[in-house]
């Protein structure tokens, strides 16, 4: 089971993306636990995550999070992919990054 957490400002746009990523994961047979939260709830929700995906609008958190969570893959989603809600592309990228980490 791969655990992925997405963060944006309100957790609204990322929630839309999560439902698409879930559908993509199911149709491809990936076992993933994907959830989205506002980044203000990061501390409470990040436990056990393999990857932290940041929406581009909170990308300024990248440096501090990379330092704080060296065991997790911390990724900023490409703006164009995020805008067009390219769930598959984003998930594949995240899974690759997690593999690199291991």
């Amino acid at each position, binding site marked *: 089971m791969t655990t992925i957490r997405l963060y*944006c*400002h*309100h957790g*609204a*746009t990322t929630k*839309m993306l999560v439902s698409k990523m879930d559908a993509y994961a199911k149709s491809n047979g990936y076992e993933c636990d994907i959830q989205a939260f506002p980044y*203000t709830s990061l*501390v*409470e929700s990040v436990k056990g995550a393999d990857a932290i995906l940041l*929406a*581009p*609008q*909170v*990308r*300024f*958190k990248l*440096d*501090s999070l990379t330092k704080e969570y060296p065991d997790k893959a911390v990724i900023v989603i490409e*703006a*164009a992919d*995020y*805008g*067009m*809600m390219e769930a598959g592309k984003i998930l594949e990228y995240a899974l690759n990054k997690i593999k690199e980490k291991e």
Partner: protein
Amino acid sequence: MDKFISKIEKVMLPISERIGKLVFLQALAQTMQIILPITVVGGFATLLAFLDIGFWTAVLESVPILRMIFMTIQSLTLSIISLYMAVVLPYRYALQLEVKNPFGVLPVNIACFLLITPTELYTSIPAEWLGHKGIFAVMIISFLVVRVYNLFMSRGIIIKMPESVPTYVGEAFSALLPALVIIPVFGCVGQLMTLTPFGHMHQMIYDLIQAPLQGIGSSFGSYMLYILTAALSFFVGIHGMSTTSVWNPITSANAMQNLEALSQGLVPPNVFDPGVVATAFVGGMGSFLGTVLVIVLFMKSKRMKQLGKVCLVPQIFNICEPVLFGLPIMLNPMLVIPYFSTYIVNAVVAWVTRAAGLVLYTGLDPSWTIPMVLKAFFISQTPVRVAILHIILIVIDMLIWYPFLKVIDKQYLREEDSGVITPAQG
């Protein structure tokens, strides 16, 4: 132009990082969100107690207790909102700081807040300082109490219980030592303040901090700076909320003051409140409702049509990221002019119409996701006028965006006709 844009990005990124680190502001924003049910119920109770529509006035007059019910609800929710904040804010702040045993700080904080409030021993706590006038006091107290509490917790200056004691009991004891220090200190400060010309600490915080800050912060200049900060942030692809959160203390205090004025049958004194802001951002903080409508209604290229499909539904609910990153508007030199013009035009029109008294707002915006126009009925006591204002602003925005989007659309059409597909920029 490109140089100018990369300069904006270089300035805005560190600013938002800096502000993003001010977790107290995040905690404050969450607190206002959490106590929203209280403010919304209180707001509706206020409206219902004073709503001046023929049949409703008749109902209120024939059943006198009805107005009493609404006014009691209002007086024990909105009018003592600082007390609710004194419960929620320290907890959210403690969570943000990752304080151990964060619940333990709540009763300590409430005690400290009440200790600086003027009271009549054993008989009453005057509601005056528990309402909007106490907001800055509650922020300052919560900040100090949580910080000091955290010092005790992080340094391990606590009464330690043997391992065999259940964690539940242990936690209660861990909050004991900080409480033994913090509460008497505030008790002393509260009493010493009665010897000063201010009479009590609330008056001092109000006179020296809240009143001047609210005065400067509520001005037209401050409001435009707020709008432009949001605009600049989104332009570099950062959520505007992360930078405008420095205004949270002021907009929160303004909103509560307006709601209280409303409950006394007065015109809300502050123009700059969540209501006017909700109108100024036509389609959420990104202000892209007009943009997306132009794309959906008038664009002919496949790329634009595809984009319209992705963006329309989220945008109706004021979620602006798809069009921001998808078009992209972010860092796009071709769209600088319509982008900033819509922000400025919307903001000025929203301010002028409110300042002139053509429209009024309650001070509440129950949820930022309520679609424009419909939103009028949640934020205003003159909803029909506000709805018309929203429609006018949407049309103005569409007129501003149309020529610029048309140029891009034509370019896409040419590319699609010639079979050359350029990859999406951004």
